[in-house]
């Protein structure tokens, strides 16, 4: 629908034609852009996809020192019931030892419950460390087998190529023993 017209034919009309055709071309361009938006936006999450973006987790069955993995928006979320030792280790680590400094207190709502998205911030692998038999890395937290990132008991990156700490999803405690993620 582009209507860019070179001036031709009658020279006296050229200026006005230019202005007119420029305006028309501009309006047409706006129209094409507006028309493209619904198509682009259709590829964003649909209404039903957005609506199911919350997950409820019952914490009662998770014994101290154990962890479970739940699905949230198609991603694994790690829920770990931390021991006093885990918490102590996490809180005694000086911020200066961290590539992405963040206090453990800022990463949890209740110290014994650590809830975070189980996706390595390097290239998206799922780190090991959920099962007791897993390699937990050198800092007692998680270890990403893809490129060797080590996370501590607060899920903070300590060594390896990952740039950031494991992400904390939005969640709320709906009771003492249950949370809603999302």
């Amino acid at each position, binding site marked *: 629908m582009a*209507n860019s017209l070179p001036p031709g034919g*009658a020279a006296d009309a050229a200026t006005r034609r230019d202005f007119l055709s420029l305006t028309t071309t501009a309006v047409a361009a706006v129209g094409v852009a507006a028309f493209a938006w*619904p198509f682009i936006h*259709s590829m964003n999450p649909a*209404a039903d*996809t957005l609506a199911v973006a919350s997950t409820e987790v019952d914490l009662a069955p998770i014994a101290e020192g154990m962890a479970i993995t739940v699905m949230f928006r198609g991603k694994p979320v790690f829920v770990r019931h931390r021991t006093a030792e885990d918490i102590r280790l996490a809180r005694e680590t000086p911020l200066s030892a961290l590539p992405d400094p963040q206090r453990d207190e800022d990463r949890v709502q209740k110290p014994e419950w650590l809830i975070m998205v189980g996706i390595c911030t390097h290239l998206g692998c799922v780190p090991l460390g959920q099962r007791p038999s897993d390699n937990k890395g050198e800092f007692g937290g998680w270890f990403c087998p893809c490129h060797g990132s080590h996370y501590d008991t607060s899920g903070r990156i300590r060594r390896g190529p990952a740039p950031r700490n494991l992400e904390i999803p939005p969640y709320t405690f709906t009771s003492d023993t249950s949370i809603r993620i999302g």
Partner: protein
Amino acid sequence: MVGLHKSEMKNPVVRWIDERLPVFTLMDKEYAKFPVPRNLTYMWSFGGMAMVILMMMIATGVFLAMFYVPHTAHAFDSVERIMRDVNYGWLIRYLHANGASMFFIVVYIHIFRGLYYGSYKYPRELLWMLGVIILLLMMATAFMGYVLPWGQMSFWGATVITNLFSAIPVVGESIVIWLWGGFSVDNPTLTRFFSLHYLLPFAIVGVVFLHIVALHITSSNNPLGVEPKGPQDTIPFHPYMTIKDSFALLLFFIFYFTFVFFFPNYLGHADNYIPADPLVTPPHIVPEWYFLPFYAILRAVPDKLGGVVLMFASILILFAVPWLDRSPVRSMKFRPLARPFFWTFVASCVLLGYCGAMPAEGIWVPLAKVGTAYYFAYFLVILPLLGKLERPLPLPTSISERVLGGGPVPAAAAAKPMEKA
């Protein structure tokens, strides 16, 4: 000869590319300088419209395919999910569903224009035949597309149309089972229709390309049907036709969008919002409106095989039109005797369409027979005879003579400001 193409492009980047891949020269030659008869009317804008709507169909279709699930258990639900949950999904689907109807409206007008102005005659026979192939591909694509939402009309339309092939003697039954991939229209049928519905539009694009190549060899016919005799008879495609076609296209889009936004289901059937049920046939099965004339021809013949043969023949006969019409004069403007027969032909097509929508009973059966008889008589009897019997009106010696009201005039005179069109 090895070497660079001699480009006349000014811009150095454009020129660099053009010397190696002369797309700019090609576009300039075929879409800017390309000479077309100066007397083309808006009836010549429908080809361009058809091309734009084809692009629209492909674009909307590609997006729909991102959300559609080709499985009998999910097809209907996935379409409703598109309508309700996908962002602007309703818009994309309505554009696609109504786009099919628009495509046929535009192409039918394009075809009738060709018939009226004799655009199929020497030297444009192949151009015309490529057009008929496009029509056939469009019909196959539209039919398979209509099956995909898996509503009642989808299912029963697919059942009825695929059963047409059972009329073929001996191998008919095997062919139908082969088409279905089973013993009724079911999941294998749906998945293959989806695959082919996605494929065929690109085949259409290919044939459209050939259609345009052929058009650019012979150039456009025109309302007078007299070939341009020199530059005084033509104008460059750009800016004259580009701007004129753009305007026509915008009017067409207003028409199209009126349906999409305010009457999106006017051209469809309520029954197709009922999920397919192999146990219940809807009381009135009718194809989409663009198939109705052919459907009427099918039902006009009491014999199963005869009906199917005649229906396919009604489209295939278009291939032979360049040789059935023996008149040396192209445009009906100069064929006073042919003109009423032409308009009767148009009326017979409309009548057939109406008969196709009505139940096959009462007055509609004989009317459909009359319509069918005239449809074939027009091509097989009237056009050949008219070529022999008719005395056409005297033709103008050139386009410019007719347009400018005098003999051939120099190009300079033609460029002088004249009264407004």
